[in-house]
């Protein structure tokens, strides 16, 4: 299924689509307020972009520096070439500790690697502890947003889910009470967790520290109660210096939700006495993306979700329509690197309006990359037939002025004479599904221009 076909499913519920659209736009507005209240925000964006560009240009050095410092801190560092190896490393660590109960905080990387199904299949109970992630885990769904994983759901959906799995009263849809239920339910899990898995927001090369940002405190609670902490990170999470965090902590949440900072910005450098800290560094296609000059800037992403909140297509099609771990504009430039055929429709899920690029806190040229992926997909023959042939026809017509003007003349007459059902036929004019074609003008601009007196033309 293509992105537009999956969007059709989301769009069946018009009321929900409108709510989704307006809610994410509200988050975008909160972002604007926070950004405008920070006078140096544009300078911070440039700095963040430059720091990331530099890091990517010396990534081999920083990876080794990070590893060396982490090891010196008593941290175990593991390297995974792909998702399979990542999952095997994590399962191996769990087996080594005889662990069967795992608590996990938010990590898009483990979603990308499909860690949960792998652990479940091997008899491990794995509990997502971020509230939004727990909700979708109970419903066996994928996150629909990198920061707001359950944004596709209404409180009624959550109420039903909690009634079914956590025994809340039917019809209790109060967010406060539902959150309290989750708090009680997850406290038990935290206290019983033998191993805690977390993601990583930033990895500081000069100190070997990993930084994890949450609002709920679930990462800290899980990690600090369990005997073993496994932090899973994509290799692009590196930054050179501790002081670089000053830039990134100032832009991350302002861009994401409009908060000045997350509730917990936690720095893990050494394991607690008698405990273990493991860091798994994952490639899974990232070195390949690093080797694509047009697309390597996508590796600068800090997963704030601002490009999703602002995207007119994402807001009206929902995260699941992308069918990729990272949805939205950034997902549409990351996904073709992983599987060009499967995700061929995603770079077209955009109006190229450029709003994503405007809000990106690390200045990724997202809309330019969307455009460039379209060229790559076209050359690789991955365009759908309808698009390929209509584009070919259009380019023929546009290349011949005579044919273009004759075509226009025919079209203007045809639109006037043909019955509405034919010009707006859903089968072959998808543009007109929810729109009316404009009244055709009597003449084209060129015809009108030719009639004007010569003097006026100068």
């Amino acid at each position, binding site marked *: 299924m293509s992105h537009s076909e999956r969007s059709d499913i989301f769009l069946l519920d018009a009321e929900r689509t409108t709510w989704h659209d307006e809610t994410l736009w509200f988050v975008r507005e909160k972002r604007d307020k926070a950004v405008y209240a920070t006078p140096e925000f544009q300078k911070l964006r440039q700095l963040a972009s430059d720091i990331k560009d530099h890091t990517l240009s010396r990534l081999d050095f920083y990876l080794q520096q990070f590893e060396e410092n982490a090891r010196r*801190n008593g941290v175990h560092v593991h390297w995974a070439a792909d998702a399979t190896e990542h999952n095997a490393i994590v399962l191996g660590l769990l087996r080594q500790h005889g662990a069967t109960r795992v608590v996990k905080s938010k990590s898009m990387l483990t979603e990308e690697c499909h860690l949960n199904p792998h652990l479940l299949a091997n008899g491990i109970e794995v509990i997502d502890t971020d509230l939004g992630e727990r909700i979708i885990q109970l419903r066996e769904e994928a996150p629909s947003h990198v920061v707001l994983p359950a944004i596709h*759901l209404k409180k009624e959906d959550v109420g039903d889910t909690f009634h079914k799995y956590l025994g809340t009263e039917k019809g209790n849809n109060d967010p406060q009470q539902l959150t309290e239920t989750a708090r009680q339910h997850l406290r038990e899990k935290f206290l019983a967790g033998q191993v805690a898995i977390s993601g990583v927001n930033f990895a500081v090369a000069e100190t070997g520290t990993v930084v994890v940002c949450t609002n709920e405190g679930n990462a800290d609670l899980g990690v*600090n109660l369990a005997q073993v902490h496994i932090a899973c990170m994509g290799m692009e999470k590196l930054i050179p210096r501790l*002081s670089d965090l000053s830039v990134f902590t100032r832009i991350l949440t302002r861009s994401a939700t409009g908060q000045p900072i997350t509730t917990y910005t936690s720095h893990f450098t050494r*394991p607690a006495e008698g405990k273990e800290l493991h860091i798994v560094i994952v490639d899974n296609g990232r070195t390949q993306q690093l080797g694509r000059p047009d697309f390597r800037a996508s590796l600068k992403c800090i997963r704030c979700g601002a490009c999703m909140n602002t995207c007119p297509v994402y807001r009206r099609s929902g995260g699941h329509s992308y069918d990729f771990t990272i949805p939205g504009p950034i997902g549409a430039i990351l996904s073709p690197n992983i599987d060009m055929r499967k995700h061929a429709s995603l770079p077209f899920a955009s109006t190229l309006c450029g709003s994503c690029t405007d809000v990106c806190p690390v200045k990724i040229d997202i809309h330019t990359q969307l455009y460039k992926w379209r060229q790559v997909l076209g050359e690789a023959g991955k365009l759908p037939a309808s698009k390929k042939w209509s584009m070919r026809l259009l380019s023929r017509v546009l290349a011949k002025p005579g044919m273009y003007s004759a075509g226009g003349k025919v079209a203007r007459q045809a639109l006037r004479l043909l019955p509405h059902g034919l010009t707006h036929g859903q089968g072959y004019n998808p543009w007109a599904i929810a729109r009316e074609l404009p009244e055709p003008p009597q003449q084209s601009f060129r015809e009108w221009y030719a009639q004007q007196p010569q003097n006026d033309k100068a």
Partner: protein
Amino acid sequence: MSSREKILAAVTANQPAEVPLPTVPFFEGDASVEKFTALVQAIGGRVVEVAALAHLEEVVRQLFPADYRMASPLLSSTNVSVDAQTPLAVLADVELAVLQGEFGVAENGAIWLPEENMLHRALPMITQHLALVLSQQQLVATMHQAYARLATVGGYGTFLAGPSKTADIEQSLVIGAHGARSLTVLLVP
């Protein structure tokens, strides 16, 4: 070849030509008590000014019920003793922790809390309510000054900003997700 060698070789082959690492300027700003207080309140916390350190015990007693199970290295009236070896069952029942914050950041209301001040790494999150004692003299304007103050982040440390919260159900803000349900900053001279 191990995955480590393979990955590093691919990175070296694929990374672009080196571009410079920028120097981050010290963006200054307002480091006033007023600004810090406004931010803490905006993120769901409360600030209580304590006239003198000697009144700390009394203020805590006024703000919180006397029968709370309380852990603190700063007060003599604590009734739960916590250290790094404290069993989880004891930790799970703590209702109030009063800990020393190192310094506050006015632009976002965050307070630096290093491991050494936590008694147990999980205490600031597992306690039902958290109070951080902070000196008015220890406020910085932005995260730039904050990180400049940290020669090291130690084994573990967190910038803690307000109570635990979530908006994962329909974007409705709920205070008290998994960590402390409330954060009180006890501002001492």
